[in-house]
């Protein structure tokens, strides 16, 4: 940074007395590295890096400032003003089930989407003939371009009736398993249906990132495995998957971020409830934070809005924690990452 205010290189060397030509030339060279386009570019990248921090801080500040009234008002007073809280004994009691529902839906979606995404990514990167791979990659990317409201409609109108018999069967035959217990919903507007739609929505991003990572596997390592007598699957297991591990985790976190914050699809499909319930086949059990905000916002008074924003703050914190946890996982085996 100190060089940015120095005068142009040439005038400064001219004034510095008799010096050997080569030394003068060297000094000129050093300053040239920070002149013109190079300096502009450095400022641009620094600015872009700073911008993301500023944006993040702005969002955090917005959430805290707007949630402040709800967070600081004594709960009894708050509950009088805000109809949303009529069944809760504290603010935490209100947001708790929402956090639970949000995480449960996102986790289920992730469990379904990640294996499929890895499978598709491996097929594109290592199994499919090139032409098919390109076409398939394109189709997957198209999935990402479908608006979430369309996914919501599809989930509510097409998927729900389709999966209802399956859910009924699961409930009847595997009802001893906590997730499938309870009364199966006749409309299938339940969390498992939501999770499927969320899985489809986050599939493209996880697939696209994983595919890129798998394609980056050094040819040397793949050949090392093959030369040891590995089949293609064994080669993928010994060379490709370990190499792509951190990338796949990052991809999954991107997907999880989207699943946690998804609003429309959840709102349109799920029959909401405010319980800590693992019954994902029963209606009226769970609700996600984002969908709840969207559902309640139009009819909320100022204090109600503040309460909803407080729940949004909780979502923000969850996302941060999840991402930090993912970073920690990736960093734990850094020595073995292949980056050194």
């Amino acid at each position, binding site marked *: 940074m100190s060089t940015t205010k120095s005068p142009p290189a040439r005038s400064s060397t001219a004034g510095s007395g008799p010096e050997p030509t080569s030394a003068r030339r060297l000094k000129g060279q050093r300053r040239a590295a920070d002149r013109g386009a190079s300096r502009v570019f450095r400022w641009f990248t620094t600015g872009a890096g700073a911008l993301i921090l500023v944006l993040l801080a702005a969002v955090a500040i917005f959430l805290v400032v707007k949630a402040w009234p709800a967070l600081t008002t004594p709960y009894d007073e708050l509950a009088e003003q805000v109809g949303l809280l009529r069944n809760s004994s504290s603010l935490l009691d209100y947001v708790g089930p929402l956090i639970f529902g949000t995480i449960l839906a996102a986790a289920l979606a992730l469990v379904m989407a990640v294996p499929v995404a890895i499978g598709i990514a491996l097929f594109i990167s290592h199994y499919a003939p090139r032409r098919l791979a390109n076409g398939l990659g394109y189709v997957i990317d198209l999935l990402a371009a479908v608006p979430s409201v369309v996914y919501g409609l599809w989930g509510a109108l097409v998927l729900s009736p389709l999966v209802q018999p399956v859910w009924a069967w699961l409930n009847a035959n595997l009802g001893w398993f906590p997730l499938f217990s309870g009364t199966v919903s006749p409309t299938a507007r339940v969390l498992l249906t939501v999770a499927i739609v969320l899985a489809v929505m986050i599939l493209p991003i996880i697939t696209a990132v994983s595919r890129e990572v798998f394609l980056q596997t050094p040819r040397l390592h793949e050949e*090392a*495995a*093959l*030369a*040891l007598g590995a*089949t293609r699957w064994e080669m993928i297991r010994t060379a490709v998957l*370990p190499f792509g591990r951190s990338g796949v985790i990052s991809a999954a976190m991107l997907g999880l971020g989207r699943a946690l914050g998804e609003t429309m699809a959840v709102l349109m499909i799920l029959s909401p409830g405010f319980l800590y319930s693992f019954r994902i086949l029963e209606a009226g059990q769970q609700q996600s934070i984002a969908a709840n905000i969207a559902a309640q916002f139009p009819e909320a008074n100022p204090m109600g809005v503040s309460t909803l924003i407080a729940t949004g703050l909780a979502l923000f914190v969850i996302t941060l924690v999840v991402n930090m946890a993912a970073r920690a996982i990736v960093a734990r085996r850094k*020595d073995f990452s292949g980056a050194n």
Partner: protein
Amino acid sequence: MAQRIDVKDLNIFYRDFKAVADIEMAVEPRSVTAFIGPSGCGKSTFLRTLNRMHEVIPGAHVQGSVTMDGVDLYGNDIDPVAVRRQVGMVFQRPNPFPTMSIAENVLAGVRLNNKRISKGDAQDMVEQSLQGANLWNEVKDRLDRPGSGLSGGQQQRLCIARAIAVKPQVLLMDEPCSALDPISTLAIEDLIAELKAQYTIVIVTHNMQQAARVSDRTAFFNLAGTGQPGRLIEIDDTATIFSSPREQATEDYISGRFG
């Protein structure tokens, strides 16, 4: 453990392009055979047909036969995966698996071949293979550290340990020292001299002194021009090739007149 390889009428193609033509040679067991020749003459390509590694490149195929101990490696019922378990390979650049520790690297091939080995057997095998690759004393205190933390020469010996851990019949080396400094190169060359007591070794090298130092027999490859297939010019005892080769081209190459 070591076996003889006979190559007859071998032509190697990348799709329609003939890369190597009409190879005839015998590789003797328990000896070192060196391939020398200018870049692009097909010696690496030919080396990779000996364990069917060239098939990794789409469109690559061969005509002719490569027989190891009487079995045609290109027979209809032969699985390339099985071939590679018999014919190990060491590459130009050291390529230990970066996500594995030193010990896991040594065992990588063994774990592919038979999944279940007891912990004690595994330890013995790691020690034996690393001893065999002259690396044991340098790494015995850090077997659980990543292989990528070793020096280039150590990494290459780790790759050799990994290759010999599966007890192959033949060991192919594709310019194993070209990315290494002279001291590490010397260590590898010493190792090659020891390994030939047990294995059939084929080594591609750009370094003619190296061929002269380590090999018993030397094959000289050349190509008539770009777009022409590479050919085997002659193969003979290393001493003969470097003192009185039959072909003028060989003489010109080893005396540094081209290439």
